[in-house]
């Protein structure tokens, strides 16, 4: 049982045996409650690392622990359960399921994770919690609920995605370039909202971006090219 939210050791990943590895990370750890800015230009193996942390992909060698569990050693369904229970994701764009309503989109993780459903119920019910988080993100659920989510602005969609990542109190929030489609002011506002809410929920944040202007808001900055030996510096 590790004290870390994320602990990676001797991780190597290649798409096939014959190809050179895209990831070779001797060590990477993020403590509980820590907020980390991970700098990763395209081509640095960022997407692969996120898929590995989420348990969607498995490494050839090395271990990956998330919230104290070795996700790299679990079978497929248990990796899926760990991801559902412990991690909230926010992506760059197109975070929402187009045919679900606003509240349903936010509540989605509670449909796949009994743990997060139970947490949300403890906080007053899935829907009430979705409404609370949307409000915290500066959205008016009553005003937006009737519209298809695809008609929301990009900034609004990202905040809905943030509410979804936070619902049910996951241990770890992984955000993958969530502000790259936003202007500087909106990006700053979005960042403070998500960091504030993660802080009050006690969640760890792993924020992946190449926008260096945002780094002052984080506890620590890690450069992926520096820790990944597979990338020629």
């Amino acid at each position, binding site marked *: 049982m590790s004290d870390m939210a994320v602990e990676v050791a001797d991780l190597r990943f290649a798409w096939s045996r014959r190809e050179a590895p895209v990831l070779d990370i001797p060590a990477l750890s993020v403590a509980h409650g820590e907020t980390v800015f991970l700098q990763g230009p395209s081509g640095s193996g960022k*997407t692969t690392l*996120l898929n590995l942390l989420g348990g969607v*992909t498995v490494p050839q060698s090395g271990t990956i622990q998330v919230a104290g569990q070795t996700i790299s050693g679990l079978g497929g369904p248990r990796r899926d*359960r760990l991801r559902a229970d412990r991690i909230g*994701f926010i*992506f760059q764009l197109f975070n929402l399921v187009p045919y679900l309503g606003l509240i349903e989109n936010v509540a989605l*993780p509670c449909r*796949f994770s009994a743990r997060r459903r139970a947490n949300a119920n403890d906080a007053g019910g899935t829907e009430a919690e979705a409404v609370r988080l949307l409000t915290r993100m500066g959205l008016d659920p009553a005003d937006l609920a009737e519209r298809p989510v695809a008609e929301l602005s990009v900034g609004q969609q990202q905040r809905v995605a943030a509410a979804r990542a936070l619902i049910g109190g996951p241990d770890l929030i992984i955000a993958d370039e969530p502000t790259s489609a936003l202007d500087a002011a909106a990006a700053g506002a979005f960042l403070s909202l998500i960091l504030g809410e993660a802080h009050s929920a006690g969640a760890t944040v792993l924020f992946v971006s190449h926008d260096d202007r945002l780094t002052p808001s984080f506890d620590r900055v890690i450069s992926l090219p520096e820790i990944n030996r597979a990338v020629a510096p």
Partner: protein
Amino acid sequence: MTAILRLAIASLRNRSMTVLLTILAIAVSVALLLGVEKVRTEARTSFASTISGTDLIVGARSGSTQLLLYSVFRIGNATNNISWRSYERIAAQKNVAWTIPLSLGDSHRGFRVVGTNADFFRYYRYGRKQLLTFQSGEPFTDLYHAVIGASVARELGYSLGDDLVIAHGLGAEGFRKHDDKPFVVSGILKPTGTPVDRAIHVSLQGIEAIHIGWQGGTPVPGMAVDADEARARLLQPQAVTAVLVGLNSRFAAFDLQRQINEDRREPMLAILPGVALQELWDLMGTAETALGVISTMVVTTGLLGMMIMLLAGLAERRREMAILRSVGARATHVFGLLVVEAFLLTVVGALLGLGLLYAGLAIAQPIVSAEFGLHLTISAPTSGDLARIGIVIAGGLLAGAIPAWRASRQSIADGMIVRT
């Protein structure tokens, strides 16, 4: 599982246009499948009940199908008659309860004329052992009386008391007519849905009377007698075309059949109507099979359409699948989502198809009954119907499994991030 069901319903509602068309295609194909089966079973029942209660049909020696066709269905011609003496011998057999002699070969405006006697109205049964009943009038009592079937009355617009002239032979027009001895409609039968509706019934003596002075199909000059003179003649029939025989005990049928078939005095053929009907129906088995094959193919096309719709949607649903994966969905959830979508489409399609079938039956029933004499009963779906619906739904699941498998493969390859 409820999460997947909710997602599937929301996803389908989001694509209402293509979903509606797909459901409609499945519905129409299911309605066709069940409709064809309905018509087939009804036609078979109706066919099998064209004649009932008759134990043997006797005619001149030919084929059993041919005898059945001309004696019951009034299709085709007898090659030969049987003598009146043979008829009397059969009627006198100890197990014989009743006989109906039939004398065929004349027609009136395309409808067959049947010479028979009053026993026809007393003993002839069809359907579920039903006797013939009169719409109006009564059986023939006079030499020149005729009792017409319901279709004859309707199509020719005849009512009681109308005159009709019998033509020699079976063509619609152009044959020599027995116009010197017109008949009067004395009775009109209620519809039966059998060939009786399309026949004109007169007495055997009437048939004899119009043929006085005829030989080989033409009147012999100088031999003609007028209608009233004919009454004075001894109108003893010399032959009949076929005889319907009712027995006291059905078990006697085989004995009497063998006895008649082995009769050395005259070559005759006795058939069991049930067996001959079955043989005749089996001749049409190919058409039946063809109908079944066609409706099965239509259903397959409907399900293929659904599969194509689901497959075509996969490319644009890659992001959706990636999002679902990121919130914790397994690849099997993605598979399940597509299969549940296919299941819902097929079930709704099948139920709508059932609805279409009953709506179609309600509309078609009076038309089919009037035009073809086929009564389509509207009843609850049979166990066969339910089995067919079950097979369609199973087929739908199978058709859904292919896009579902592709979607789950695709989502495993894509992970949580789709870079397009």
